[in-house]
């Protein structure tokens, strides 16, 4: 059943511009560095001995912003497919469990974010090679592309929950706007704040912790959202 529901979610996401946004997310972050290095390459290369890592750091300044806001946009789009014409009642009156419907939406969203992270890796790699920055640090490249994805799973779970239960999409969009602020000024904030996690900055200096925390807390928030969704009457 879950496989069929996921197929249906993909079918419904046609012509909604999801894939364009996924592309823009992955590409946009690198495009900003194209402008940055295009304008002042000499200056930037002088800033560090390890040009590749410095380049990756520059990119990873923007990855959390794109992730947090991208999550807010994609979840709102995803739930508006049903919210806009009150199609929840049609969907839930089919022989499906509400839990599976919720899981299908979450899975499709997580998949889209994963594709965006993959695109980010490819574009980062491509432009890095173009800039000719020296030996390619593959480990760091993958780390800065995929760790933020796992670290942002709690945000995805939370935003999906808020977006499905809100009549008014202003609410999930506003939580997205609030959520982006910590990822932009992360240094001074406490480590428990989930919106800080995609920036991979923490007091232990161990970005991998946020991957595990992201998976754990993401699951937890996912279940809370799913059971709350199942508990509610369908409008």
């Amino acid at each position: 059943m879950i496989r069929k529901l996921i197929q249906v979610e993909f079918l419904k996401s046609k012509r909604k511009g999801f894939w364009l946004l996924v592309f823009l997310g992955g590409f946009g972050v690198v495009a900003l560095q194209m402008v940055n290095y295009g304008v002042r390459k000499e200056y930037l290369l002088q800033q560090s001995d390890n040009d590749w890592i410095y380049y990756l750091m520059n990119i990873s300044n923007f990855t959390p912003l794109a992730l947090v806001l991208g999550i807010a946009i994609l979840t709102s789009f995803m739930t508006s497919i049903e919210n806009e014409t009150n199609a929840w009642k049609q969907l839930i009156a089919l022989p499906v469990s509400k839990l599976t419907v919720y899981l299908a939406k979450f899975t499709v969203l997580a998949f889209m974010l994963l594709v965006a992270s993959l695109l980010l890796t490819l574009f980062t790699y491509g432009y890095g090679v173009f800039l000719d920055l020296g030996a390619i640090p593959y480990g760091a490249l993958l780390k800065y592309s995929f760790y933020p994805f796992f670290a942002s799973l709690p945000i995805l779970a939370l935003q999906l929950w808020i977006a499905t239960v809100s009549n008014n999409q202003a609410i999930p969009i506003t939580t997205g706007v609030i959520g982006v602020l910590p990822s932009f000024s992360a240094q001074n904030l406490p480590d428990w704040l989930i919106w800080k996690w995609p920036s991979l900055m923490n007091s232990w200096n161990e970005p991998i912790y946020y991957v595990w925390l992201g998976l754990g807390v993401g699951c937890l928030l996912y279940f809370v959202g799913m059971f709350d969704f199942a508990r509610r009457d369908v409008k």
Partner: protein
Amino acid sequence: MLAILRSEIFKFRKANIWALIFVGPVIAIFAGLVDSGELPVNSWVYTVLMMNLVYAVLFLPLITGVFASIVCRYEHQAGGWKQLLALPVTKGRVFLAKYLLLVSLVFLMQLLYLGAIYLVGNMQGFAEPFPLEIIWKSVLGGWIATFPLIALQLWLAIWFKSFAAPFAVNVIFTIPTILALNSEKLAPFYPWAQPYLMMNIGGKVDAMFFVPWDQLLIVVGGSFILFFLGGYFLFNRKAF
């Protein structure tokens, strides 16, 4: 005209989410209190710089888009546009009324932000008197800098039925602000960077605003004319 504006205000009040104008100032208070470690220079100035970083770079441009989508929400639901436009009103006035409502909301939010700064300063017991003139300039300048952004967001909010679509465009333009602000060459020309620049105290105090007049007129004024007229004429031509 006044009647349309009143009706718009009524609808917005009934939307039960006018409380959103408090969100920014409240976050700014937290931002002001978190950074209370070492205070270099004038403590008021330092606090405002810290609060601006959180409030004006991303939050202010992004929230204008949320407001714009809210004031068009009723009309997008269940064919409200044709209901509204079948009343004895001109499309131009409807557009103007919605625009004025948005501008007033942002003004209210700016006033609350001013209050937030005052509150933070008092909570921290700053010795210096509240530099009202400087902060007022900052708040007013930030408000003016949002005029073009509000116009574009209103245009998009009318255009797209979905709530998230205008916001997506807003995000695409707002994120590069951070990059633009890093470059002294680019920043003055990027409309989405203007709210922060015009709120960024520390420029010439004797000037009217914290950015030069020609930058204000050309970048803010120019983009305002472009976005406002674009939205205005496309709204007039759009069939509902």
